[in-house]
């Protein structure tokens, strides 16, 4: 956080204590800085002040009436008091008013125990009520959406929910109805409240008026164990508080991390926790005996796995063994998995279920990751969404795009299907599914053919630009219009918009690169950003929206057949040697088999961790799956693949283990164990350590933190990473070790955006080995064609 210049600070005193806050701050924020509580209901720091609840009264010298702290902007020399008799009477009066029509059914209210009305009544309110007449009554509760119930009697009309729907989510939803004492929250019957952000209104409701169906009467706050962690459902990596009662995750609440989620959480992250609480989870290792999977002890299972893997590797060579990792497991587990295969079994046959990523191309220094950040979207003037659906797949990125729209950004939606952002978009273009890559090339065609290139990069590399122009010369919008069914004139206009944008962000879906036309999509769009000068500064950039919570981390950790952790090629002798020295093994230089190759029968023994290839395979390929000599599956459930396995090892959910995830904006964040592991199941890293030991390896990891520290020493992108250094909020890679805090805690500093220089020279090695500087500036651009 940058130091505020002196002249932008305003000095005031609150209750006699001086404080300096940025110009334009509210008294409420200044008091908060001093640790003075000013009660609020209608105000929410992420929304415009309203001044409706009249709870935050303070006395300001020279003001005749009490001022509301949530609407009054500080001025130089202001003298504020929060403890005068008048202030106390004002607050007590408001609380008494709020309580006259509020039912005192706290014992059966789901909010009881974490209710602002309870808390402030206790701290600021009158001891009793003088209201001895009849309260207002409503039928209760009524459903306002499929997941939310409304108890109108409890509503204190703070309008937080209605304002969230209108001004933050910018969707239909809750609105205020009626007036005066009949005021209530309601939904337009013609516009159902079906937003994926709806759960936020439950969290922000200061009373129990809006409650979640899934949490209804399930618990009370004091029964919950609350752990700050990261949501494990999509690639945004929203920070959450996992609320657990005994052995069940009841809900996730948002844990504000403004850089990632801005304090919001989507309904999936909030409520879709059935998998964790499922009764169908595996509770014991299974071994196939007499053709049937039968319960076995951990010891027996791990010995069997190690013994058979070793046996096959010794008999048919290490290449006969392979492993398929997961995009859901933690970085630590992905790291251990590939280490087990590379160092323990001597093979590079390791991949994950999305297979090769275009980034893993020869000479890659950095992968195709989002070069900017989620928070950076707010500074963009133009946002292109190509073939992606953030609303459904990365909801909180969608919410940030809406914030960017409010800040003036223009959004261009180019997707095969209707998108929830269409209504707010400046451009909406549809095309036939499967042609995303052609559209990217058409955009590049317009930019190069019309001479719209901009910026230093393009200016210095005329030859590259020319080569690029030639490579997409045939992909004119008119040409693409025929195949992809897109409007060519609009596409041309869009390319010009991007080229002329103050700062544009180009976002595409990771899965679009898997389309037949998408092989060079990532490279083409990177070049598009580079050639239009939309690169290397906040608010400008390009990148994929990832599929799973650790899609990027899995790749970072080397779950790829041709790269070691940190995208260093297995062919790179120095990298191999350096890593081998740490791992105490000699690493193979030959790239291993890919996902498809292994599943196609390229290996005899297959170790599947957290993946379910059987679900995605065609019937013909399934026979291969049945044909493995030895198949190990490590998962939470008896998946399609696990049903065919020789050994099944029960794993635990992300709420039951420590570790770290890397989200779509390259942010490495800590996941914390929120509950005891399911009895009988073990965390993936624990299982891997057990198997490694059974293999005779001398692995001594006791906690995931030790693994993370090793990653911090051996993977340049993650240099300096450790449990303590990542702290509560995480940091975006490339990481570098930072200075220690005054308390002695190590820190890391991240990179909110990637610059071309980082691509050009790689990340400076701070650990064992760095990336080779061999990748010249031209290479990355040309690389797109090489694939």
């Amino acid at each position, binding site marked *: 956080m940058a130091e505020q210049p002196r002249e932008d600070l305003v000095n005031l005193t609150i209750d006699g204590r001086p404080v300096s806050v940025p110009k334009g701050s509210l008294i409420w924020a200044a008091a908060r800085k001093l640790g003075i509580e000013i009660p609020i209901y209608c105000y929410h720091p992420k929304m415009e*002040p*309203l*001044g*409706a*609840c*009249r*709870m935050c*009264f303070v006395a300001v010298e020279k003001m005749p*009436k*009490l001022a509301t702290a949530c*609407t009054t902007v500080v001025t130089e020399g202001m003298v504020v008091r929060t403890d005068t008799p008048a202030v106390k*009477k*004002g607050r007590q*009066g*408001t609380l*008494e*008013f*709020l309580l*006259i*029509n509020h039912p005192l059914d706290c014992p059966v209210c789901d909010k009881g125990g974490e209710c602002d009305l309870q808390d402030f009544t206790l701290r600021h309110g009158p001891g009793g009520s*003088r*209201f001895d*007449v*009849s309260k*207002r009554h409503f039928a209760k509760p009524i459903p306002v959406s499929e997941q939310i119930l409304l108890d109108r009697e409890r509503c*204190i*009309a703070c*309008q937080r929910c209605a304002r969230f729907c209108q001004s933050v989510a910018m969707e239909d939803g809750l609105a*205020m109805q*009626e*007036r*005066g*004492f*009949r*005021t209530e929250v309601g939904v337009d019957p013609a516009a159902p409240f079906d937003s994926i952000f709806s759960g936020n209104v439950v969290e922000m409701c200061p009373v129990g008026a809006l409650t979640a169906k899934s949490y209804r009467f399930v618990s009370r706050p004091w029964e919950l164990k609350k752990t700050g962690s990261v949501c494990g459902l999509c690639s945004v990596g929203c920070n959450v508080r996992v609320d657990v009662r005994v052995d069940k995750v009841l809900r996730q609440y948002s844990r504000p991390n403004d850089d990632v989620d801005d304090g919001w959480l989507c309904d999936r992250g909030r409520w879709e926790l059935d998998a964790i609480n499922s009764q169908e989870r595996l509770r014991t290792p299974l071994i196939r005996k007499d053709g049937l999977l039968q319960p076995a002890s951990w010891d027996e299972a791990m010995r069997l796995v190690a013994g058979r893997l070793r046996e096959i590797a010794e008999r048919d060579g290490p290449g006969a063994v392979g492993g398929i990792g997961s995009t859901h497991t933690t970085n630590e587990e992905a790291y251990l998995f590939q280490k087990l295969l590379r160092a323990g079994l001597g093979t590079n046959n390791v991949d994950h279920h999305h297979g090769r990523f275009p980034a893993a191309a020869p000479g890659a220094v950095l992968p195709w990751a989002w070069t900017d950040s989620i928070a950076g979207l707010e500074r963009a003037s133009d946002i292109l969404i190509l073939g992606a659906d953030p609303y459904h797949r990365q909801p909180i990125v969608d919410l940030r795009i809406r914030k960017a729209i409010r800040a003036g950004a223009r959004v261009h939606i180019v997707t095969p299907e209707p998108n929830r952002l269409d209504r707010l978009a400046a451009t909406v273009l549809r095309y036939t599914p499967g042609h995303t890559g052609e559209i990217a090339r058409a955009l590049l065609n317009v930019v190069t053919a019309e001479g719209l290139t901009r910026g230093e990069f393009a200016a210095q590399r005329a030859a590259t630009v020319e080569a690029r122009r030639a490579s997409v010369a045939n992909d004119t919008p008119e040409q693409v219009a025929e195949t992809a069914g897109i409007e060519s004139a609009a596409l041309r206009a869009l390319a010009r918009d991007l080229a002329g944008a103050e700062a544009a962000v180009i976002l595409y879906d990771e899965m679009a690169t898997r389309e037949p036309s998408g092989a060079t999509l990532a490279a083409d769009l990177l070049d598009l950003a580079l050639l239009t000068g939309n690169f290397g500064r906040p608010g400008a950039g390009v990148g994929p929206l990832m599929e799973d919570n650790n899609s990027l981390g899995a790749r970072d950790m080397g779950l790829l057949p041709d790269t070691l952790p940190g995208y260093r090629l297995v062919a790179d002798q120095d990298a191999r040697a350096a890593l081998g020295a740490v791992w105490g093994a000699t690493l193979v230089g030959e790239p291993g088999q890919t996902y498809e190759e292994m599943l196609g029968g390229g290996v005899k023994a297959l170790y599947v961790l957290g993946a379910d290839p059987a679900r995605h395979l065609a019937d013909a390929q399934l026979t291969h799956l049945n044909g493995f000599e030895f198949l190990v599956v490590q998962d939470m459930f008896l998946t399609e693949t696990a049903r065919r396995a020789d050994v099944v090892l029960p794993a635990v959910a992300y709420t039951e283990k420590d570790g770290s995830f890397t989200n779509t904006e390259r942010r490495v964040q800590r996941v914390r164990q929120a509950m005891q592991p399911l009895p009988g199941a073990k965390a993936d890293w624990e299982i891997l350590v057990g198997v490694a030991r059974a293999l005779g390896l001398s692995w001594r990891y006791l906690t995931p933190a030790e693994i993370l520290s090793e990653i911090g020493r051996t993977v340049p992108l993650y240099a300096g990473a450790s449990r303590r250094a990542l702290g509560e909020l995480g940091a975006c890679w490339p990481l570098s070790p930072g200075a220690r805090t005054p308390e002695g805690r190590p820190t890391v500093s991240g990179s909110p955006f990637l610059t071309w220089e980082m691509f050009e020279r790689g990340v400076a090695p701070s650990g064992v080995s760095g990336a080779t500087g061999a990748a010249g500036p031209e290479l990355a651009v040309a690389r797109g064609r090489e694939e």
Partner: protein
Amino acid sequence: MADTLDTVITEGKALPLGPYPRIVTKDFEVPGIDRIEVYRQHGGYAALAKALRDIPPDTLAEEVKKSGLRGRGGAGFATGVKWGFLPKTAPKPRYLAVNCDESEPGTFKDRMIMEVSPHLLVEGTILAAYATHVHHAFIYVRGELAFAGRQVERAVREAYDAGLIGKDILGSGFDLDVTVARGAGAYICGEESALMESLEGKRGYPRLKPPFPAVVGLYGGPTVINNAETVSTLPAIVTLGADAYTAYGTEKSKGTRIFCLSGHVERPGNYELPLGTPMRVLIEDFGGGVRGGKRLKAIIPGGSSTPFLLPEHLDTPLDFESVAAAGSMLGSGGVIVLDEDTCIVAAVLRMSEFYRDESCGKCTPCREGTFWLVQLLERLEHGEGKASDLDLLNDICDNIAGKVFCPLGDAATSSIVSSIKLFRDEYLHHVRAHGCLVGPGARKH
């Protein structure tokens, strides 16, 4: 059919003029004055022509400032000063909104202007727009006043047809568009910022101030909002000149104003009188005294939002300062007379119910407080109250007044606080005797 034009004019004809000159309503008895031809025959739009021809906008604004004209909506803020708050330059266009959302109980002057002489309002609107460099004015008519709304809409149409609104008005180069908007039936929309919200098509909630409308108002542009009577006075000021206008009224409350006399008087109605005229003149000479020769009990001098006055205040001059000195407010000029048989508690209850129902529900003290007040007053009125309820009422009023978002909440408390102060015994009678002291339901004990 009290709201047809004929009856209004018939009633108007009965107005005794006497020595009291009428400036604004001088032509209100003329048949057909709501038509542009008749209006023009009687000198209508001459002031506009004069202003557009001879008086530069800033001079006109200066003239209005000099005239001492104060807002007729209730607050009594000097109109010229208000116009001066408009920033000289702003990135967004500036607007004029004429507040015809007259909903204050006891006030019905704007309605008469709109129904009887809508062109007066339109002419005033054009003058106000001219003086404030506005090129788009809105006339916001209260939703319930259907006839008035139609009259104003027609008048605006006629003015457009006559080239009095539109491009290059009367060859002066001044352009103006006037939009007539009808409210949807909410008292709160008479509050200037709620009026703007309503005009923008939103829920009628008052806005946070600052920024004030003069800086950020309608559609984000600087906006001046004037009462219907205020702008209707402008033609007279232009015709007479500021100096002549200031001859009427008192030192600080200049000019004339329309008083709406209602309640228990012989001749209720609208009477234009110079400010400073004693209340006795209005009630006894013009209104014919208390109906049925009964004794006077209380007077509400400025619409239901203002505190009660007693018969002893009958000689108070009707100007802003004197009424304030007597402990009330001149407000919107709605003088309500209550005779001796009126149960004060019932009257206050009725007024409180109005504020409870009209509270917009945005801020807590007003939304919940008015609800509670009515509950308590209802209990008292029906003889089930307690003596301690009076202190409770006072304290609730104290928790509302000055702590609410907009003046509606303050207004809701004034009648209660003043009536408890002035008629405490009558309240206590309800407690002791479980019934009213006076009126048909009186119960002696």
